[in-house]
């Protein structure tokens, strides 16, 4: 499984756009990039997943450059409720025929604190 590196913590203010970058230099060809959000005393929550270029959903955007050695999670106009730990994970999707079975490896994550 590819190792990921992301900032330990970030600070922002309400209404700002937040970009969290994750480095994954040894990402494999069949690896996908997945981001999770975790609030205190709760389980992580899936946010977004992508393979290359840009993916957008109702919560966030994920930007992946052509070399796929890094990715950036973008949270538009954050609010106080976005204060959480954000995890970047890299691994095979484990689709039919795969063998990873979705064995996720969580690093330390990025603690995002949104201030009023």
């Amino acid at each position, binding site marked *: 499984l590819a190792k990921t590196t992301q900032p330990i913590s970030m600070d922002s203010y309400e209404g700002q756009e937040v970009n969290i970058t994750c480095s994954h230099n040894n990402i494999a060809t069949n690896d*996908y990039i*997945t981001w999770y959000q975790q609030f205190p*005393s*709760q*389980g*992580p*929550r*899936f946010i977004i*997943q992508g393979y290359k270029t840009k993916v957008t959903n109702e919560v966030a955007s994920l930007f992946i450059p052509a070399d796929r050695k890094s990715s950036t999670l973008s949270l538009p106009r954050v609010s106080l409720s976005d204060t959480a730990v954000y*995890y970047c*994970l890299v*691994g*095979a*999707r*484990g*689709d039919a025929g*795969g063998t*990873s*079975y*979705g*064995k*996720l*490896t*969580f*690093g*330390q*994550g990025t603690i995002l604190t949104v201030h009023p």
Partner: protein
Amino acid sequence: SQTIHQWPATLVQPVGSPLSLECTVEGTSNPNLYWYRQAAGRGLQLLFYSVGIGQISSEVPQNLSASRPQDRQFILSSKKLLLSDSGFYLCACKTGPTYNEQFFGPGTRLTVL
């Protein structure tokens, strides 16, 4: 959509005592199930995963064990707890079209004294 129940929500146990944590899943059949542990201030560590009844794979050697007696039931056990077993235990199941999309339960906070 899936729902995961975990109990108990919190547990305080003495060192050397046994442990049984239960996870049940609703809203899906034949799910891939996972047990994770999160120590205070740290990331999640995958402990066990199961692709079907009676099928358990262990990721980390330890004094814990897991069982899957029914399709939507996943149990984490220990015969003798250690201080290092303290943590936040999370059960998860695969959701969505890819295995990297997992849905997590509310967790059990275990403190071993």
